């Protein structure tokens, strides 16, 4: 089913996407949720359990910013470990998507290193 591959993929890349959003600039959870919800259609509520997990894994850290209206707001930013994770996962993702693209293109060779079949 098209739907199930969709879900499996999103499930796998959500944390990666959060890292990518945060790499563009420190942000607060509502903004992160709204952006990801628009971009890849994730449920907004999932961001909070995910952010707590990423925080306990040391990938992101929080700090409070005073707000002129209402209570101070919690911002998230990447830790050095988070930057490192993003770098590694970006590399992995690029390689993976290249391989999938190659498979989807019928005329392209499967692998550069693939030996030619013996005649």
């Amino acid at each position, binding site marked *: 089913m098209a739907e199930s591959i*969709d*879900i499996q993929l999103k*499930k796998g890349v959500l944390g990666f996407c959060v890292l990518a959003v945060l790499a563009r600039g420190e942000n607060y959870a509502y903004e992160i949720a709204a952006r990801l919800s628009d971009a890849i259609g994730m*449920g907004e*509520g999932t961001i*909070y*359990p995910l952010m*707590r997990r990423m925080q306990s894994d040391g990938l992101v850290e929080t700090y409070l910013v005073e707000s002129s209206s209402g209570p101070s707001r*919690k911002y998230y930013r990447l830790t050095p470990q988070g930057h490192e994770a993003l770098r590694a996962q970006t590399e992995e993702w690029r390689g993976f998507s290249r391989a999938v693209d190659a498979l989807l293109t019928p005329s392209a060779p499967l692998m550069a290193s693939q030996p030619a079949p013996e005649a």
Partner: protein
Amino acid sequence: MTRTEFMDRLKRGLNGLSPSTIADITADYEAHFNDAAAAGRSEAEVASALGDPDRLARELRAEAGMKNWETAKTPSSAAGAIAGIIGLGALDVFILLPLLGSVAGALVGFFAASIGVFIGGGVVFAVGPFLPLPGGWIVALLMGIGMMAGATAVGAFTAALTIWLVNGVVWYARLHYKVLKPALDAHA
């Protein structure tokens, strides 16, 4: 669902976590509602976009339980982590629970046995030298020490095995994490 209903159900679901954790989590969702209201969205719309509060609470509990286990490896944090994971439905309860139950039973048995042998060794060490045992008092002392040392080793081994087992369960649960799937389902 209104904002109040959503928050009430979430809080009810988080019951049992430490007050500071609950305050942290509810503050996140309150802020979410505030920010959404500022963006002009209705309470009902935001609540439905957030997903089922009972399920979110189960996910957050499971996460908190595993985090506790990772920071402090105590029997109660182990029980909390496993309870949270079972609540999540990430473990196949009917297949794994009987298995886990019998393994846990065996581990408890090992612990009890090592405590028993340790006490026995202490008794031999204390009383043995005064009894007419073959080999004299030195043999009784050494035997007592030997029993206590053996029991300590078995106890330590059992503790290591238990920690390894709970780590394995946490690892398995993370691998099969269902946390994100239902919310994506609801969204699809």
